[in-house]
């Protein structure tokens, strides 16, 4: 969880978690209860699977589109943001976190995580 620890040290990062593409295993650090982290992992995995399905559909329509394969997604709310790259999620406080910095860091650190298990 080296990347998770690095993320957690960044301003505005409330919690970081990692989920298995298959099955219900997960791990997390930060200000979430275990039950909430489990719920967040399930929601993130479901959305990631949807994004991957969309990427595959895009690829089938037009090969070479820059959206395939998907690397992640971000949901930006009024006070909090959820950033997901590969199988890692990050919960942010919007007043303190830089989304550009967090997404850039996660894309770089998780660039070699293959989607083979999806």
């Amino acid at each position: 969880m080296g990347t998770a620890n690095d993320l957690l040290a960044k301003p505005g990062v409330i919690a970081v978690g990692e989920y298995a593409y298959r099955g219900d295993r997960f791990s997390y650090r930060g200000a979430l209860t275990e039950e909430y982290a489990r719920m967040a992992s399930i929601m993130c995995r479901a959305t990631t699977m949807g994004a991957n399905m969309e990427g595959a559909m895009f690829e089938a329509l037009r090969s070479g589109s820059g959206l395939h394969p998907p690397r992640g997604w971000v949901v930006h709310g009024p006070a909090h943001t959820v950033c997901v790259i590969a199988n890692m999620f990050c919960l942010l406080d919007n007043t303190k976190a830089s989304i550009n910095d967090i997404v850039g860091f996660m894309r770089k650190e998780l660039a070699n995580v293959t989607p083979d298990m999806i």
Partner: protein
Amino acid sequence: MTKLDELMKLPGAMAAFEFRGSGELLEQRIAYPDRIDESILDLLAHMCAANMSIATMQARGWEKVTTMKGFYPVQEFTLIGFDWSVVVSGLHREQYKQAGKFSLPPFMGVVMANDKADYEAAFAILEKQEPVQ
């Protein structure tokens, strides 16, 4: 300048578009027609409409179950692909809902090249308040 034109001025902007809540593409600007065309944007708009709905449902459910606030209403959903990202928002619609309007404005989105993408700048344009008509 329209919001679509403003979105096209973002670094790495490849296309900007408007779509209905049901996903139909309404209007678009395309910087690289050889790479993105109307048919691609139409499918993307339908995907973005679905993603916004799912994210909104999850944000609503999460707030109810955890009592943590600040996720709903979803302001933007961003899909990050290998080389491109797409950011979409329906925040402007919230203003109309709060004003009691039944006819809502369209969702808006922008496709950007990842190596130049400035997500926060895209959010700022999409969140800019406009008068309710």
